[in-house]
Structure formats: structure tokens, C-alpha cells
């Protein structure tokens, strides 16, 4: 008998197939049938409730003419670029610092990572009041004697999106660090040692030898942050509620408000389809890889 890593129960074991059925059915209904349903709705005249009058691309055309959608797309672009680059950069720096220090892993890593364990709504509440110029950071600086200090971004239409980015980075950087830390631990020691023997300084060692070996970590980080950026909804709602005005509108908040409060479900569905397309570009190659590796 050949032993391999796959368990062979028996080829005709119907029980196994039967057991998998609920998961398959639920996934196909709640994921794939629902996706098709939303795509279909995006081509209909649905308003308060779903309806099935076919209107072709009308919702998409209308959506791309809306000022709110433009704001949402612009914010999404600013948000995703800054969020992904800062969180990646800071996460990498932290991973290197933590990797160097004996106390790093045991003491600092849990401190950097804990924001990941709490809800975006909690994060949003904490930062909302901390950044509020009336009682938060601005007020703190005033009591410390910096009377001219001004930090009212959260109330400023042009700057509010950056406060969302700050809070989002706060939440996720520890996670990014954890991924890089795992990557650093997997770096080939032989290449490091030979580089050290050749007299490479720390800077060279990292830029030429170690960081280039972190390719897979960078991919994971990019995919995870990219997909979180598309989905981010809770934090915006708790921190700014899309305001001031509609200044921090994102595709996710746009979708929700057009679908459930503005009674333009067709347009809401169109924006959801747009989000799915963005998401698919990022995630499909990644899932392909996970499945192949498994």
C-alpha cells in the first residue's frame, strides 16, 4: 500500500460528499447567486425596492456623472495610495526594529498589534474625539503652552480624509509588521553571513540582501491592504460619517447610502459591482496562489 499525504477514505464514500454539501450550497447561494443578483440589479430601474425593468448601462452612466461618486473615487485613490504605502513602510521598519531587539517580540509586538483586535467602530470613536479640535490633540497642545497649535483636519473638508488614513494606519500597521516579521525570519541566513563576511554594512545588507528576499511578504501586504482599502466602511462611518458634508465619502459609504437611504438601489448596486471588480483584480491571482500551494 502506498502511503501518501492525502487521506484515502474510500472513493465511493458518499458521506464525505454529503458533508460538504451545506458549505457548497450556502457558498453558491450566498456568494455567487447573490453576486449575480446584484449585477443584475445594477442594470435595472430598482429604486426603493429591487425591480426588474432593464435599463442597460443607465445606472453606470448616471453614477459616473455624480459629484458624490467622483468624491468617493478621489478619496479612495488618496486613501489607498497613502494607506498602503505608509502602513507598508512603517510595518517594515517596525519589523526590522523588533527583529533586532530581544524585548521586541515579547514586549513590543503585542503593543503594536493590539489595535487589530478591536472593532473599527471603537477605533473610530477613540480617534474621533482625540482629533476633535475642541477637546483633543489641539486642546492638549494648548494646555501645554503651544497656543498657536492648530489641528482641525477632521472638521476640514479638504483634510478630513487624511484623518481616516491616520486612524486606519494606526489600526493595521502592527499586522503589516507581523507579516514582515515572519518574512524576516524566513530569510536565508547563508546569504546574510556571506554578505557580512564580504563586509556589507547594515544598510547594504538590508537594501541588497534582506529586503529583496521579502517579495512574498510584500505581495501579501499589498493584497491584504488593497482589499481592506476597498472594503473600509466602519471606520469612515465612526470617524467622520462620510463628512464634513460628503468630504470623506468612499465607494463603500456611497454604496450604502444610495442603496438604503437615498432609494437609488440601481446606482447602489452599480457601485457595489465596481467595488467587486476592483477587488477581483487584486484577489484572484492571490487566491490562485493559495489554492496552488495547498
Amino acid at each position, binding site marked *: 500500500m502506498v*502511503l501518501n*499525504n*492525502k*487521506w484515502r*477514505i474510500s472513493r465511493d464514500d458518499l458521506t*464525505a*460528499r454529503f458533508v*460538504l454539501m451545506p*458549505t*457548497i450550497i*450556502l*457558498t453558491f447561494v*450566498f*456568494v455567487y447567486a*447573490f*453576486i449575480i*443578483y*446584484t449585477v443584475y440589479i445594477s442594470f435595472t430601474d430598482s429604486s426603493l425596492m429591487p425591480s426588474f425593468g432593464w435599463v442597460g448601462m443607465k445606472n453606470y452612466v448616471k453614477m459616473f456623472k455624480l459629484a458624490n461618486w467622483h468624491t468617493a473615487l478621489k478619496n479612495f485613490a488618496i486613501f489607498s495610495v497613502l494607506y498602503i504605502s505608509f502602513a507598508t513602510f512603517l510595518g517594515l521598519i517596525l519589523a526590522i*526594529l*523588533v*527583529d*533586532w*531587539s530581544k524585548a*521586541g517580540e515579547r514586549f*513590543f509586538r*503585542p*503593543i*503594536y*498589534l*493590539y*489595535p487589530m*483586535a478591536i*472593532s*473599527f467602530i*471603537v477605533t473610530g*470613536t477613540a480617534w474621533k*474625539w*482625540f482629533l476633535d479640535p475642541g*477637546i483633543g*490633540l489641539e486642546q*492638549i497642545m494648548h*494646555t501645554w503652552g503651544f497656543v498657536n497649535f492648530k489641528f482641525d483636519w477632521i472638521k476640514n473638508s479638504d483634510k478630513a480624509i487624511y484623518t481616516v488614513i491616520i486612524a486606519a494606519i494606526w489600526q493595521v500597521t502592527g499586522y503589516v509588521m507581523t507579516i514582515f516579521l515572519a518574512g524576516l525570519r524566513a530569510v536565508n541566513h547563508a546569504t546574510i553571513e556571506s554578505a557580512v563576511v564580504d563586509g556589507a554594512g547594515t544598510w547594504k545588507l538590508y537594501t541588497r540582501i534582506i529586503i529583496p528576499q521579502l517579495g512574498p511578504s510584500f505581495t501579501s501586504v499589498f493584497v491584504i491592504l488593497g*482589499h*481592506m482599502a476597498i*472594503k*473600509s*466602511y*466602519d471606520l469612515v462611518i*465612526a470617524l467622520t460619517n462620510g463628512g464634513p458634508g460628503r468630504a470623506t465619502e468612499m465607494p*463603500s459609504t456611497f454604496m*450604502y447610502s444610495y442603496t438604503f437611504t437615498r432609494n437609488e*438601489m440601481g446606482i*447602489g448596486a452599480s457601485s*457595489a*459591482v465596481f467595488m*467587486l471588480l476592483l477587488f477581483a483584480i487584486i*484577489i484572484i491571482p492571490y487566491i490562485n496562489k*493559495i*489554492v496552488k500551494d*495547498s
Partner: protein
Amino acid sequence: MRLHKTAEIINMVIMVIFAIFFLTPLYVMVVNSFKPLSEIRGGNMLALPVDFVLAPWRSAWSTAQIGVQATGLRPYFLNSIKMVIPAVFLSTLMGSLSGFVLSKGQFKGDKLLFGLILFGCFIPFQIVLIPTARVLGSLNLAGTTSGLVLVHTVYGLGFTTLFFKNTYDSFPSELVQSAQVDGAHFFRIFRDIILPNSTPIIVVSVIWQTTNIWNDFLFGVSFGDASSQPMTVALNNLVSSSTGVKEYNVHFAGALMAAMPTLVIYLVSGRYFVRGLMSGSVKG
């Protein structure tokens, strides 16, 4: 790598600065949840309370106005518990069964199937909000805890299947094979051999699912009503309610209550939390 003494000190200083950045919001929530409102308004958010009071916690828990009623967060805390426990149990159980079956590699197209299941746990949920609302409505589950349990179970299956499949893939096969030779059937093998050896991954799955479901907002706000809304939705209602004086201290106490269960889990079993995070999983 070993560092020189000075480099080690600089390294430590930078790490401490970052630690302050990460701890400040938590610190701000804690100290201000024990201050009377006047002390927050006039003073420094970073200062320790001069007049240490418990009233904000009492108010957040049992008397604060959430929506139309002055019930405090307590009923919503209970809603979250009623939602989390069955959803975590069901998604973990189903995930372990599916992971077990998919791990055997007996099906044509099992990899494709696995990929399709995985895709489902990463999608932006906006794409399923409209039909889910419809289906919950027609099942008479709109605005109920059972509806939220169903939704969280279904959209948790991708992660739990992933966790268990990956674990079972690296299980030694001899035990199972010898049980088969002895004539044991599927459920017998699953119950007597697989489950007893699955404790660590069950812990990961339970922690991951509890954290995710407890922290969810989108499903709670979309499909819950006053009798079933979870803690996150109630907290947001409390904080963003536009009527009356802004009771920052009550908001901070409420935020801490919402954060407490998952923070405790994180402190007690951070290792398992990290394993969940690292299994290619994404929060959202």
C-alpha cells in the same frame, strides 16, 4: 543580528516612541472614561482624572440613550453574545467538516471548489447586501439575531474551511488509514481521530471568528433592528447621536465595553490570534 550598545539604545527609543503612538488612543479612552464631563471639556485629554468617577461607565452600561430608548449598551452587549456564540460554533463545526473533506483530495475539481469558497470570504460585502436583505426578509429573519447568526455563519465558512483544510493537509495519514482498515466510517474517524487532534486549530478558528463577528458593523447595521443590533452598532448610535450634550466620557466607557471582549481574548491567547491573522486571513 547583534547590535552595538548605542544602536540597541536608539532602537529601543524608537520602539518606545511607536509604542506610545499605539497605546495613546487606548490610554485616552481609559482615563477619560473615569472623568466628569467638565474635566474633559476644560482640560487635557492626556491628564489623569482629578475627580475619579464611575458614573460614565454606569451610564454607558444601563442608562445612556441609544436610538430612541435610554437602555444603555447592556441589551446590545447581550445581543452580540447571542449572535457570536452560535455563529462561531456553527461556522467552526462546518469549517472543520468541509476542511476535512476537501483535504482528502478525492474530488474532481476540489481545488477549484476550495478557491471558490475562499473567494467568498474575501469579497467586499457590499456586493451581497441587497440580495441578503431580500432573502432574510423572505425567510422572516430580517431584524433578528437568527438572521445575523445565519449571515455570519455563511460568510465565516471560507475562513474556517481554510484554517481546517490547511491543518488537515499536514496531518499524518497513518492513523486515519489504520482506522479505515479497522472499518471505521466517516463520522467515527472524524469524531474519534480528527477532532481530538484538532484542538489548536479549533482554538484559532474560535478566536478568529469571535473577534471578527464581535467586531462586525456592516451586517449588524444592515440586518439588525432595535431588538437584535450588536454592540458595535449601538456604540456608533450612542456616539453619533446628534441630540443633547456630547458625553465624551460615556462614549469612551462604551467604546471600552465594546472593545473589552476581543481585547481580553487577544491578551489571553494572542498567539492563536496571530495564527488566525497569518493564515492568509484578512479582517474586514
